């Protein structure tokens, strides 16, 4: 059976079916992201003074990734326009750039994630004196990096400091090796904390520029709480990872579809060029939507 209106438009709507389909799908996507955005707003406005982490994401990296995504969006539409005049070679070049940008975006994002997984906040039982913004400050909360036995460990938390015993299954086979207790660790504190205002943070960063970290030794017994910048750190990181990971999955999905149409699926250009162009247009519409989500995500998460 032949599926109707895959290439020719339906007389009553003036649209081929896939186009109606993608717009219905995008409408549902708007609701999905809308729900998460509204959750973000509610968490944000409900957060008390000085409790909402800000200024912890790299703005230059975020800006660069925005440029990467905008570039991929324009190459998608230029590729489609090239097909309109039958220039298949030009289309191939444009979409190759799109695919490269997509994977570039994901690469940069994973680099950012990795950075967060070894960046920590430590809550101390008693305040100590550290250097922040060109002056000595008394504080019981520090941001920074851990150094333990020559490594910068990932995903540490309060429980990790206490260590854990060996776990055996019922046959006596060790399923999880014992983890040694941590007595103390070296900590390289950042000159900033998000309890500062954005202005104070910028000032503190400027003051400390070029000065090396003052490494301190922290005893595990002095630690009230330890958390890497992971979802369980705070509602901020929970919503940050939820939104950016969901967006990242959309980038990955879109890139796979565009790659398929560009590579193995390109045979269709010879047999049914109109339907092929429609596929390129529909995948492009999805891609622009992904770009559109990022246009809102970037300022609210990185800048505000």
């Amino acid at each position, binding site marked *: 059976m032949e599926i109707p209106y895959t290439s020719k438009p339906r007389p009553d709507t003036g*649209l081929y079916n896939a186009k109606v389909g993608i717009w219905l799908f995008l409408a549902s996507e708007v609701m999905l992201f809308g729900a998460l*955005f509204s959750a973000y707003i509610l968490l944000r406005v409900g957060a008390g003074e000085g409790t909402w982490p800000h200024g912890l994401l790299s703005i230059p990296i975020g800006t660069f990734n925005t*440029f990467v995504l905008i570039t991929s*969006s324009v190459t998608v*539409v230029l590729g489609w*326009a090239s097909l*309109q005049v039958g220039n298949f070679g030009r289309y191939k070049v444009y979409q190759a750039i799109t695919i490269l940008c997509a994977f570039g975006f994901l690469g940069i994002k994973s680099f950012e994630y990795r950075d967060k997984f070894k960046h920590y906040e430590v809550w101390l039982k008693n305040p100590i004196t550290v250097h922040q913004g060109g002056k000595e400050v008394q504080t019981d909360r520090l941001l920074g990096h851990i150094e333990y036995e020559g490594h910068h460990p990932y995903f540490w938390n309060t429980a990790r400091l206490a260590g854990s015993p060996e776990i055996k299954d019922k046959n006596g086979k060790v399923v999880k090796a014992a983890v040694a207790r941590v007595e103390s660790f070296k900590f390289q504190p950042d000159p900033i904390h998000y309890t500062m205002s954005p202005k104070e943070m910028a000032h503190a960063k400027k003051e400390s520029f070029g000065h090396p970290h003052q490494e301190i030794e922290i005893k595990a017994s002095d630690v009230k709480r330890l958390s890497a910048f992971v979802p369980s750190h705070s*509602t901020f990181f929970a919503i940050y990872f939820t939104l950016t990971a969901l967006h990242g999955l959309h980038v990955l999905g879109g890139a796979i579809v565009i790659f398929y149409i560009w590579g193995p699926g390109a045979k269709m250009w010879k047999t049914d060029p109109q339907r092929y162009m429609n596929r390129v247009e529909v995948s492009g519409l999805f891609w622009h939507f992904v770009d*559109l989500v990022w246009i*809102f995500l970037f300022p609210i998460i990185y800048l505000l």
Partner: protein
Amino acid sequence: MSDHSHSHGEAHGHSPEEVSKHKKVYIAVFIALLIGTVVTVALNYLHFDSKALTIAIALFVASIKATLVACYFMHLISEKKMIYVILGFTTILVIALMVLTLTSYAAFPNGTVTH
């Protein structure tokens, strides 16, 4: 833009002149998006005292960028009626979603969300 592309049976519906005109528009939108991004980031480094102003400006620029993408890259400037109908419903529903969620703000006054 797709108004003409299906009017005849052949694949390449747009005239080369038309397409090259569209390409110019795409490039212009691309440059506008880049400028918009630079403006948003640059304003952020100014650190306005008013938080409301900072948020308003960031969202205003983002909305302009989003409109440009939707109108020109997604061709919403000249679409068929049915697409507008779908998006009309979506707009109403997403606004309702936002408003309904935010009405629960009274249950989470400032300072009640901790970590």
